[in-house]
């Protein structure tokens, strides 16, 4: 095993060992999983692009990426790898860096969710738009995960919003996610009973809500409609769970740490695990859409044995202080080391039609904040990897031109077989750039 590319902030010895156990156990069960994934894969997805990538993964940092260390100086395929991207150097044929793109959304932390929502933060997010089209047949229409947070993000600080502009909670405990992915035999019978009995009685509460609703003014009836919709959605979810109960995924025996690394300082370790679980979920056909929110609060990281000079948020407000920027870039690079691990795992695993999972998955790495030091949401650092796309190295767009980040999303959606010609404020596409 090449230790050079492993995350270093946790100390070599322990990480190497744990890292090795994980990947080893996950890949041991690979043949069975592939077979299983295929059986799912053949079911009912009649996308227009049969050869296109099947999965979509989006990753976003709450406090942005330091632009100067993220953007290569040169454009095109020949570029010198900038500091933050060093960990993914080996994948340079498999990704494109975009500079100068954004959604023209408002500034400030409150508008962070423009990352996937476009110009209007807190509205139907891109991942959910994709999931609503391609995720419905999977066990999980989409997975929303997070690391580095002490609490659940809510409202405008969240990342994923349903069609109704309602934010979706994110999972931060790997053990909880894992239990949802691989239900045990003894749990199955009980779950089935609960689902069946619960579903049959939902009609009752719906009827009750309708009776209540009848006497209410129009505005209040509209509000109660949220209840109907939510109950119906729960019903659908129960149905989906019932179907998958008959066809459970085999537990690959992934070794989780004894305790969930949810302390914000253990964000990197948590991210590596979440990346592994996303890869396993894609491989097993449990989902086709996943997102990972990399939160940032005051956690102080220790990198290469040295505690950084300030907490994450403090560093993001670097005020152009070179020492602060140096530490911030170390931190961004640590995120990219975890990300490189993800790309490596995707490359090891099999996707459909003999492709690697990397070629079968469009991975979007970005943020809703362009420059956290100024709270500016212009010029969002964006990287698209995998998906079998014709990658172009560094594509630089000046802030003045008309191209929006949404144009890129439209192209990504189309590659995933989701035919849209507009997203948020964007009406164009970047098809030519990625072909």
């Amino acid at each position, binding site marked *: 095993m090449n230790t050079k590319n492993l995350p270093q902030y946790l100390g070599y010895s322990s990480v190497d060992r744990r890292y090795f156990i994980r990947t080893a156990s996950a890949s041991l069960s690979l043949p069975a999983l592939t077979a299983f994934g295929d059986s799912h894969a053949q079911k009912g997805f009649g996308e227009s692009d049969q050869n296109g990538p099947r999965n979509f993964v989006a990753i976003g940092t709450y406090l942005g990426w330091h632009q100067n260390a993220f953007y290569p100086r040169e454009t095109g395929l020949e570029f010198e790898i900038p500091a933050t991207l060093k960990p993914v150097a080996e994948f340079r044929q498999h990704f494109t860096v975009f500079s100068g793109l954004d959604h*023209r959304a*408002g*500034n*400030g932390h*409150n*508008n962070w969710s423009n990352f996937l929502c476009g*110009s*209007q933060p*807190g509205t139907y997010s891109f991942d959910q738009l994709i999931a609503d089209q391609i995720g419905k047949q999977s066990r999980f229409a989409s997975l929303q995960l997070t690391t580095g947070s*002490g609490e*659940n993000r*809510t*409202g405008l600080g969240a990342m994923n919003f349903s069609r*109704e*502009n*309602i934010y*979706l*909670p*994110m*999972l*931060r*405990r790997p053990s*909880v996610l894992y239990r949802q992915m691989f239900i045990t035999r003894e749990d199955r019978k*009980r779950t089935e009973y*609960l689902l069946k*009995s*619960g579903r049959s*009685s939902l009609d*009752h*509460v719906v*009827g*009750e809500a309708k009776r*209540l609703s009848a*006497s*209410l003014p129009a*505005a*209040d009836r509209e*509000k*109660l409609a*949220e*209840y109907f*919709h939510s109950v119906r*959605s*729960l019903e659908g*979810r129960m149905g989906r769970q019932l179907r998958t109960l008959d066809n459970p995924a085999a537990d690959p025996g992934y070794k989780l740490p004894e305790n969930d690394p949810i302390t914000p300082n253990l964000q990197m370790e948590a991210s590596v695990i979440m990346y592994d679980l996303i890869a396993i979920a894609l491989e097993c056909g449990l989902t086709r859409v996943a997102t990972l929110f990399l939160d940032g*609060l*005051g956690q*102080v990281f220790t990198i290469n044995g040295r505690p950084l000079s300030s*907490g994450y*948020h*403090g560093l993001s*407000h670097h*005020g*152009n*202080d070179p020492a602060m920027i140096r530490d911030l870039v170390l931190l961004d690079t640590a995120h990219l080391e975890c990300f490189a691990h993800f790309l490596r795992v995707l490359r090891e695993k099999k996707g459909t039609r003999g492709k690697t999972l990397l070629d079968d998955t469009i991975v979007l790495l970005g943020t809703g904040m362009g*420059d956290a*030091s*100024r709270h*500016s949401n212009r010029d969002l650092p964006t990287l698209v990897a995998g998906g079998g796309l014709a990658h172009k190295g560094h594509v630089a767009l000046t802030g003045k031109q008309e191209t929006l980040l949404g144009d890129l999303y439209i192209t990504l959606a189309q590659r995933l077989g989701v035919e849209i010609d507009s997203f948020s*404020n964007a009406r164009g596409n970047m098809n030519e750039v990625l072909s």
Partner: protein
Amino acid sequence: MNFRGFPPGLPGHQQPVTGHKIKTVPLMTVPFVAAVLLVSLPGLTWFRGAVATAQVQTEKTATAVPDAPREVLQKYCVDCHQPDAAEGGIILDVDSINWPEKDNLELWEKVLHNSSQSRMPPPGSDQPTAGERKLLGDWIDGQLSRHLRIGGTAPRRLNQAEYLKTVRELVSMRDYELPPGFPGDSEVHGFDNMGEGLVMSPAHIASYSRVATEIADLLYPQPRKAVSSRIQRGGVEDLVLSFSASAIKEGKLRLASSARDIMRSCTWPQQHQAKVSGVYRVTVDGSVFKPRDGDLPMILEVRARQVSASERSVIDNFRFLKDLPFTSKKSQTHAFETELYKGETLSFRWKNAEFDHNNLKATVRLMTNWFERDKRWLAAWQQAVFPGGLKGKARISTLRGLNGWNVINKALQDPDLDMSEATMDSPETKELLRIFGTVGGGTHNLGDALCHYYFNQGPSLQLHGYTIEGPTRLVDSDVDKRYQQIARSIAGTGKGKLGNEKYARTMLAKFLPRAFRRPVDNSTLEAYLKIASEHWEKGHTFHEGMHLLMRNILISPQFLYRSLQPGELDDHDLAVRLSYFFTQGPPDAQLAALANAGKLTDSKQLRTQAKRLMPNRREHPLVRSFTGQWLDTRGLKSIMPDPKFKFEAREINIAQAEVELFFLDMIRENRPLRDFIDPDFTWTAPYFAKRIYQIKGLRGRHDKLQRVKIPRGSRHGGLLGMSAIMMTTANGVDTQPVLRGAWVLENILGISPPEPPDDVPALTPDTRGTSTPREMLAAHTGEDSCLNCHRRIDPLGFALENFDPVGKWREKWPGTNRQIDASATLTDGTKIKDVVDLKKWLVSNESIFAFNLASKLMVYATGRPLNYVEKKEIRQLVASNLSEKGGMRDLILDLVVTQTFRTK
């Protein structure tokens, strides 16, 4: 709240305009005080939309603008506010207005406000006469009052805190916790309990359903599965070693202390826990080590502990099982049968050991006698604890445990041991005994060292091993029994010989009105009964039927939503509003009884109940939740200040407690509202006061909060002088005068500034010290587009610049050698030089703050933003509170009897 969408067909706005995100916290509107500091919001894209809608609908239901006000508008306003030149996006050149349109009501309220404040027309333009202003104002006031009704809260689902408390009370499970990943709530109008913000989403229903299942599992459990009996043998290596509670010597585990702190006296199996509650057969092998006269029998006390119990537990937390007497130096076996509950294992303690860490008096007695008997023993302890004599530093914490014993033992073996102080009346001996008699000295450090004497020299009770075999049969644990008791109490009856249906009917009659917080009619009850009876008909068990019933009740809209009936609240909804306002929980028995008797709508009774529910401790929800949200102190824990401020969890807790205790006293003592700004007291802790507020000489424990008298007119004290407030308005790294200013504007003065437009470059603070924040901001207030708002925001922020990001007073800007200039000019022209002046100004204009606080409380209580007529009602109430020299408690009592409070 969704102002993102714009009316269709609006020219030039197919693309929604971003940038100014409109917050809808109510604006203060009418001339209310002479000097008012207010904003006109520039570039309100929202109003652009509003006017367009009004025009579209003009044909339908619009009423004509009468000539007189129309003339005033034509004469002074329409030059700038006409379709061709809609300054600020506002058009006032209209013939008719569709008044019921919400956007129009808001627009004209704004017009009224700006006109009556003489904010419009702008300086330099022709100004209307006082009579013309009055004419316009009266016309708008009349229209607004005619077209607006009190009330209109959207159906509110319980928010996370309310839901948790409601579940806990309903099923008497005070320690129930929500599962991880339970969705939170969005904040709208500054609070997380607003009708608009409390969206019901699939994620919510899924989580409610999950909680309902968890509760049903506890109350109506599945039959336990038979578990085959197994036997676990453990040796000494399978037992836990905790501090100096035990040690392994010669293959035996020796015990030494009878302390009640289990981590200092007990041992327990590392790997065993009962899989189910049942009867187990236990054997214990042990012996006595070097007993002296009178030591026998040594009693080994066996208790049952939860494996997950905290190491900080005391022995009484564990269930007593058996005392086992040991008398032999050879292995002796005791066997007994006992109940172990699910998750429990055994715990062992030498019950009659002479040494007890926690009994400080007995420890001093023990050591006194020992020192009298054995002067060499005394000298060795003196040598260990006072290596440099009494003048040197006493060594206590490093003498902990085995390390300490090694030092003492070395002294004991030392042939040259200094015996000169080894008398009972020497100061060293006295000091040594004093240390043994202290928490820490006797309970921790020296006590732990002493244990090792017993491990090596005896006497000690030693364990050789144990076996746990079972279960031989299953039993109900205390926890099972507790839930059975709850199930019985919520049904009002045990199952006994009642038939399934009869039992369920009894249960529903008692439980449904509590769950739905109002009486339930018979058809509702029968409908629920049917859920269970149909389930039973299909052959499911009694518990399965009740389980399904409970799952249904707990996701019913009547449980999840409150106050659904429109109009004036009836007794039951009033009980609900009152109760959730004060306690974030459902009405208690007394409120429910009053509501059932139809007595709560009586204002006198309502006030009496409000008095009863008034906060009495700082954890009270009206204190904690309201201040946490109003003053944003709820987010303190996520700020995590830069390490250089040495501000950690303890300091953050103190800062938050200061605010809560202060707010509580404001209520309890019915203080005048201006004391929020400039009081004669504050709450703080001595070391914190010294470090942050430069208040010296406070007595009492250094980190215990106490009430402190301060002179009025101080820098510190009051909301604008508290660490928590200064912290929440900074980012933990540096201060941002603009953010602080905007915060004061919104939360103290009650005016919401708009978000900065997105085409304005954000300010990058340069922390390298080349320029001060004031110099950097000067550049950005140089631009007209910024100036309009920033001349209202920035002065308030600069006045607070003497407070660093954790609220500590400073004279110089960080990183520079330059004196902080906190002076500013308020928009009414008042010049202030610092925060003390700002507080003076706020006190002399106390109605601004008072109205803001009253509005915030009302928004929090009703879950809706206040409209013009509601604000009118509150304004009257605030005016009389001030003129009658009322206080904070009066204000709250007056609020709950208003129409605004009493209407859905």
